[in-house]
């Protein structure tokens, strides 16, 4: 490896890290403002001067200042390591999501598989946190998270498999390149399944039973304070970014749009942002499902729907081949 190549690797990593630190804040600020206005409020207005744009920066400063507490009964090593396990997978996932054919940090050959694999690792952080906290609410939250993730991983994988089948590629770049507007209708059931499963995977309302504050305090994150707690929050918003960009690339054609040669990455970001707003919108509008309703929805609705989509895609691909 020459020095130039090494420099390129470093630059790409720094770019991914910057995106990883900035985009979740962008989504978080959007959530602050959109949620506020959907509830007839204004949201943050003071931090930073203009409409509270620096609210999350101020929050970050606050989290840094807070005491980092590890409970006496906790499994200390696991407890301290859990936020990293929750956070890093989304960083890895962000590295392989293409914003355009050129703007991609690491163009892995089977990036769709890689993204699904690493996002599934993220849940391990929640499990570790819940188990190591030595707190019954944390444990309940972790169990709920595990049950939820097991249920929703399947429809997620099946819906992505359908898109891969339709595109004939396991690479996200290949899928977005093979996309055509006709997919909006053809892959619609899969897209719905993917979106629902992604929201459930992120433990966002209406699927936030693992952190249901009215029932189990804050689930697996109950015992966390300061920066480690902030990392869990960051991983949630990084998860929204990853899932939204993934949705944009898989189902909305990523960079396809007018002037895609120059502005391709803008299109991907724009589509991903719209999906992120939809995820926020769902949170504001809907109440939390019950634990059994969640499982029913996964196994009786989403899995059959995803299987039907897979069958439909398979039949169409074979018929048109």
């Amino acid at each position, binding site marked *: 490896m020459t020095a130039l190549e090494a420099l390129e690797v470093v630059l790409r990593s720094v770019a991914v890290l910057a995106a990883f630190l900035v985009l979740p804040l962008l989504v978080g600020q959007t959530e602050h403002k959109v949620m506020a206005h959907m509830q007839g409020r*204004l949201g943050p207005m003071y931090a930073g001067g203009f409409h509270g744009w620096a609210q999350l920066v101020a929050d970050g400063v606050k989290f840094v200042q807070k005491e980092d507490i590890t409970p006496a009964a906790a499994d200390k090593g696991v407890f301290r390591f859990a936020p990293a396990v929750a956070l890093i997978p989304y960083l890895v996932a962000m590295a392989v999501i293409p914003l355009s054919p050129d703007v991609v940090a690491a163009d892995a050959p089977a990036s769709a598989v890689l993204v699904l694999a690493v996002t599934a690792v993220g849940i391990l952080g929640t499990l570790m946190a819940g188990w190591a906290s030595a707190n019954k609410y944390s444990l309940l939250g972790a169990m709920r998270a595990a049950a939820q993730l097991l249920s929703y991983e399947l429809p997620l994988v099946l819906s992505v498999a359908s898109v891969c089948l339709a595109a004939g590629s396991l690479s996200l770049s290949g899928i977005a390149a093979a996309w055509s507007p006709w997919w909006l209708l053809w892959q619609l059931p899969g897209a719905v399944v993917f979106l629902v499963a992604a929201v459930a995977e992120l433990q966002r309302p209406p699927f936030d039973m693992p952190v249901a504050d009215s029932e189990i305090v804050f689930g697996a994150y109950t015992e966390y304070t300061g920066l480690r707690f902030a990392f869990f929050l960051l991983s949630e918003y990084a998860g929204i970014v990853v899932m939204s960009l993934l949705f944009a690339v898989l189902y909305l054609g990523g960079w396809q749009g007018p002037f895609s040669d120059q502005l391709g990455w803008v299109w991907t970001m724009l589509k991903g942002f719209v999906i992120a707003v939809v995820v926020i919108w769902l949170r504001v*509008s809907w109440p939390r499902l019950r634990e059994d309703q969640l499982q029913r*929805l996964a196994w009786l609705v989403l899995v059959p729907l995803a299987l039907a989509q897979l069958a439909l895609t398979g039949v169409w691909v074979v018929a048109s081949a």
Partner: protein
Amino acid sequence: MTEPTTPSTTPSTTPEPTKRSSGGAIPGILKGLATTARTLAKPSHTAEYPDVSPHLPPRSRGVIALLEENCTSCMLCARECPDWCIYIDSHKETIPATTPGGRDRQRNVLDRFAIDFSLCMYCGICIEVCPFDALHWSPEFEYSELDIRDLLHEKDRLGQWMPTVPPPPALDEHSAEPAEIAATNKPARPVRTPAARPTRVTPQPEAEA
């Protein structure tokens, strides 16, 4: 389960697990989305308080103002105060007779009048009972303190609120005249002659026994 549903009448094709007779789950969740989207489109009504001063209704109870000249140290307010948050100290002064051979007069002089707003529950009873209109409601409310002991307002501080006391609200249309005006407008009493007075009948003490 509000009412029994039979498969023949209720189409069970909704993919959501919850089946209600009130329109089904899908219209319900779409309605939720529509409601939040509509609220998003409308401007919010928030008035940001420190920047925008609130519109206070008439007769707002902000702080109690003291008109010291009117106070006679009669202690009625301090006695009626439900949580005893009014402190009054006074002494008597003798005013020498103005005319030779006249009698010296005594009057109360107010030394201390303090209201502890950390105890006050803003019931307004002190203002109601004051016979000389020495206490008034002022709508000013921005007198919070970092130390709770600073909420004890002495009489000079209470007197400073006086300029902020609004004039009494106008009477409603067709309402009765104020007592003072009614008294002056009343025709003078007819002079009664002693003969016209009915003879008083005193009850006999033996009748009760």
